[in-house]
């Protein structure tokens, strides 16, 4: 009596396995051309397929995602989403679900993943400082209390994280390669650093200053990096224009042999020689730049602007420093992301609830994707870039 039941069960299990695997086979997919779009007001993440220029899913329940940013695991399967409300969420792009989530602070500004992909760090406004988590489980690993707002957090080679302090004008280099975390504090970075970037080679950390005309750079190859001011007094003593949105600094600043950097309180993109760090020119722009991002080949720099000029995007030719094209995608252009080789640019147009896709050679619009108040766009190829 038992035997027929057992064999029937076994057969059924076998059938199910075959069927399930067949189903899975259809679903097997790589993640190299996927990306995510932050839907800031609804606290959701739109998962997009870059090749199909289409949304393929949505993950909800990520909290307050205004000013959210994202990094990816080395296998490009998981996205770590840093929410404004201190939420840190690990999202599985394949199952389109939340793999882990912690509320790690009251108010956060951004995050980074270590070079080995094992640690995720978050910079916090409240309580100020940086916290580090296990990338697998999101269990706490280390914390660095600063007593003030931490900004400009990036990863650096050697299992290090670098961030700066808005109030104190310091940069902290946290080394997590040993048994105990080690911190190098660099003082005298300048008044109110608002954001920072690390170059693609992981050597140069550049902090933008809100409180003075200039930026400060650190050579992370030095044992004890000394702050060096670049573009000092770029405002030439003129009163700054009102800044209705802080610019962002990102690892896409290098265009060929120069950096393109947004001015603060001026409607200009500033050009700096990547080797000498001397000013080599400036390009007058439509408004206060927010992002100035170089196409991956460095040939062009695309710029978006702060309110009330945020319906426009301008394209600057790197060699001449001239604006070669001006687009008006629509109300509130918040972010731009290049395809890894730069043939396309994706633009989030928040108040039109749309992602626009442009051909970067012809400037023709190739498509659009509906999204709910989209802000940041992040492609998985970032997983393999230092500082992103």
């Amino acid at each position, binding site marked *: 009596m038992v035997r027929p039941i057992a064999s029937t069960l076994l057969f059924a299990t076998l059938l199910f396995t075959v069927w399930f695997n067949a189903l899975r086979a259809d679903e097997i997919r790589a993640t190299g051309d996927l990306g995510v779009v932050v839907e800031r007001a609804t606290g959701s993440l739109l998962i997009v397929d870059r090749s199909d220029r289409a949304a393929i899913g949505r993950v909800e329940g990520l909290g307050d995602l205004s000013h959210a940013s994202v990094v990816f695991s080395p296998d490009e399967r998981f996205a770590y989403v840093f929410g404004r409300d201190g939420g840190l969420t690990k999202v599985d792009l394949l199952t389109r679900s939340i793999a882990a989530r912690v509320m790690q602070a009251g108010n956060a500004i951004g995050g980074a993943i270590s070079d080995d992909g094992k640690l995720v760090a978050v910079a916090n406004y409240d309580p100020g400082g940086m916290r580090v988590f296990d990338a697998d489980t999101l269990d706490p690993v280390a914390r660095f209390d600063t007593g003030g707002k931490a900004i400009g957090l990036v990863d650096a080679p050697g299992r290090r994280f670098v961030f700066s302090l808005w109030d104190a004008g310091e940069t902290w280099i946290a080394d997590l390669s040993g048994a105990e975390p080690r911190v190098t504090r660099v003082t005298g970075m300048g008044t109110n650093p608002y954001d920072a970037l690390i170059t693609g080679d992981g050597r140069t950390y550049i902090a933008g200053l*809100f409180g003075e005309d200039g930026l400060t750079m650190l050579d992370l190859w030095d044992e004890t990096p000394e702050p060096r001011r670049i573009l000092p007094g770029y405002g030439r003593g003129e009163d700054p224009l009102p800044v209705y949105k802080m610019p962002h600094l990102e690892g896409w600043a290098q265009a060929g042999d120069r950096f393109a950097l947004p001015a603060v309180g001026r409607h200009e993109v500033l050009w700096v020689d990547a080797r000498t760090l001397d000013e080599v020119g400036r390009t007058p722009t439509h408004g206060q730049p927010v992002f100035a991002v170089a196409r991956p080949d460095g040939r062009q720099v695309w710029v978006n602007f702060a309110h009330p000029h945020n319906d426009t995007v301008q394209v600057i030719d790197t060699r001449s420093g001239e604006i070669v094209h001006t687009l008006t995608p629509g109300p509130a252009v918040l972010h731009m992301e290049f395809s890894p080789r730069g043939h396309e640019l994706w633009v989030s147009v928040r108040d039109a609830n749309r992602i626009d896709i442009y051909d970067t050679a012809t400037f023709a619009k190739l498509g659009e994707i509906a999204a709910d108040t989209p802000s940041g766009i992040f492609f998985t190829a970032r997983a393999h870039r230092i500082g992103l």
Partner: protein
Amino acid sequence: MPDRRAVTAACLARLLARLADRLLARLTVALTVGVVAAAPAAAEIGADTIGAADAARLERLVRQDCGSCHGLTLKGGLGPDIRAQTLAHWDRDGLTQVILDGIPGTAMPPWRPLLSDAEARWISDYLLDTE
């Protein structure tokens, strides 16, 4: 063993009560915003007034553009918390002044180039009165 039907009924009642609560809260907010929008209009006849369309535009501006420093929920970011309970010690005129002229030496910019006096007043009222 508790009667399953009774439990279900109790759950349903609780759910309905919660829904009603939420509706009421939303209605209160709507009414407050309505009154706030109407207040300047009543106060100064002839001056530029804030209509419903403008109110929606200004609310969006507060959430999205003030929100880029103060947070979408106004709980703070690079800029401080500007929710009603935190602003309790501010009066309408003082707050309007800060919106129009900014706070020199800080990241708070003057909005006078972009906003009229009436619009700034509407935003003050909105910030002071919105739950």
